[in-house]
């Protein structure tokens, strides 16, 4: 049993538990917290895969993001309507069947097509390399994304601005 295996199984359990928490929670704030747990677990998985920068970014961006989700979850819902997310039993069963089937299918395919387990031979990339790559190989998508972010910022501001009467 290697340390990586221990860590992976531990984190996988945590991530799965939190994801299931998201599924089972009926309260929006709890759901958001479970989401945070999942995201944190995934961030640790990134650390496990030596993607340190990505892990940290995940924590920063998603901590902020989840925060907003929670805040709006609190503000936009009330116990009367929002909290008890009433799910129709039929819908629930249907969704469960479909998702479980999908999961089973995916897992089966993944396991069957799994190649031999190889240890990664890649070096651990540093932040500098990511930066260099972003500004050389991936410069175009990088710029596109930044333009998109600007558009999103303006769009969101436009959407929530009070109506002129």
């Amino acid at each position, binding site marked *: 049993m*290697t340390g*990586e295996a221990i860590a992976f199984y531990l984190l996988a359990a945590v991530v799965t538990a939190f994801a299931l928490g998201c599924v089972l929670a009926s309260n929006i704030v709890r759901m958001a917290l479970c989401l*945070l747990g999942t995201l944190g677990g995934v961030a640790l998985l990134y*650390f496990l895969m030596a993607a340190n920068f990505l892990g*940290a970014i995940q924590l*920063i961006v998603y901590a*902020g993001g989840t925060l*907003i989700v929670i805040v709006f979850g609190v503000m936009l819902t009330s116990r009367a309507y929002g909290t008890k997310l009433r799910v129709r039993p039929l819908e629930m069963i249907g969704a469960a069947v479909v998702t479980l089937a999908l999961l089973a299918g995916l897992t089966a395919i993944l396991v069957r097509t799994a190649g031999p387990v190889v240890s990664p031979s890649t070096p651990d990339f540093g932040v500098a390399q990511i930066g260099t790559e972003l500004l050389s190989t991936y410069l175009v998508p990088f710029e596109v994304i930044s333009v998109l972010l600007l558009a999103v910022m303006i769009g969101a501001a436009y959407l929530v601005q009070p109506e002129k009467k």
Partner: protein
Amino acid sequence: MANFTVEDALRSRWSASAKPRAVRTFAVLGIVLAVAALGLGYLASSAPGAGYWLAVLGTALAGVAAMTCLGAAFVIQFSRLVGTWLFRLAFLIFVGGLVGIALLAWVPALLYEQVDAAVADHYGAGATGVLTVADLEAVGWALPTDSIEVRRQGAVGWAPPTDSIDGRGKAVVGSAHPTASFLAYALWPLQFRLTRDILALVGVVGFVSLLAMFTIWWERKVAGRMQSRLGPMRVGGWHGWAQSMADGIKLLQKEDIYLEGADRPLFKLAPYIAFMPALALFLALPFSAAWICRDLDIGLLFILALAGIGVLGVIVAGWASNNKWSLLGAMREACQMISYEIPLGFALLVPVMTTGTLRLTAIGELQAGGFHTWLAFQSPFTLAAAVLFFTATLAACKRAPFDLPEAESELVAGVYTEYSGFRWSLFFFAEYAEMFAVGALAAILFFGAWYSPLPANWGAAWLHGPLWQRALYGILFNGPLWLIFKGFFFLFVQIWLRWTLPRIRLDQVMYACVQVMLPLSMLVLLGATFWALLVPHGSMLAVVANLACTALGVGAVLAIIGIVFYGYSNRRQLVGTLAIEHWPGS
């Protein structure tokens, strides 16, 4: 004056059945945790890679928790004894702590290097292997003379010995000293990374706890002095130094109250969500080039991320309390955090851009050349970034004048309204830990990190001298004491501001962020970019700006010192005759 002892605090609290129950609970918990720690430790010793890291974390946390629980059981069982004993020896403990910190500064250099040298001797440079106690016994304990130098230059943290330490002077091998046998047994565990990491984690946990306790007491003393009173004076001997300890014991025994209708799991969880990140960010916070638990190449991002997560605990606490004041406090906290992280991030980008690295030790090492090499004094923009950073951290730590989430005159106690006892104190541990962390971060990023204002190469010769010269070097030029000192300086400024300024209103907080700090920080970042592009290092303009900023910084420090000195020497005149004469009631 009769001292208020722990026993006094306990006497009023314990019911007949509570004491044995608490002892039993703590003892059982402690044993379980100890077993868990041992198991995890065993796993960790065999686990390489990231799993090792997790296991170490688990081992250390479980170990600390086990020790805490067993200690609590012991203290509660023998509270009368412990109380009197503790408070008799108050001063000794205090002085011992100070001396301990001073000595600890050289542990990595003196002990770890020694063991590493022994390993290298035995297996050859660059190789790894495990020494037996007998091997260690054969090693003489003369200190490797230039190991400290190597450690300082290497700046490798507590990484495995093989990482970068090469070509260092060999330990002198001599005949077995009478104490060598004992030392060998004591030092044998130090050759394992696991031991060093656990020591580091225990050190971090201990430091954070002591930090919070000390800072709470200190804040009360500072507040008292600013308000022409004495502050805590009774518990303990000297100036009520044990006040936070007694408060802590009191808080531990308080009833854990839940509100009807509160979201209990979240309510219980929230203090931990707030506390754990505040604790964990110390893992990446360097106290000096060698004194760091994990020297991450994304250290700054890591700390920022954890600080962001801690806020979530406060928000969840406010929401789960089922109290409208708490909820309003949580909303304020959310507003404030989301807004102020942006100028904070921009301000942080300036030193990152100047130095070109996110690794905190690397940023720190660049400032070794004395006062004028500190990053804040490199250009007007870095200085502005330092000011912006400090202001934004005030808001991020919800300290006055940005303490809206707990604004006691508006929101009762804001998010903390419904918390009591231990959970309540956890929030404060988190708050003070974070306050110190941002202070230390300000020091690392802008104000010379663990270096004194004197250039570090001035006393370099002392590194090869006897122990006292090395210790003096550590005190005068370079070492964790300097970072702690700087961190506490910024902490003091935070305390000072809190007891001086009124609170800002919510809309003004948002206004200050969005309309003032955000554009300013953007301009500063832009300016710093152009400065880096257009002003070459060593050019006339750069030197002039450097000198001017340094002069400004020196002037500010001298002004503060002058004000303090003036205030202290004229305190009687300043307060007024009446206050001194205690008139006319006496």
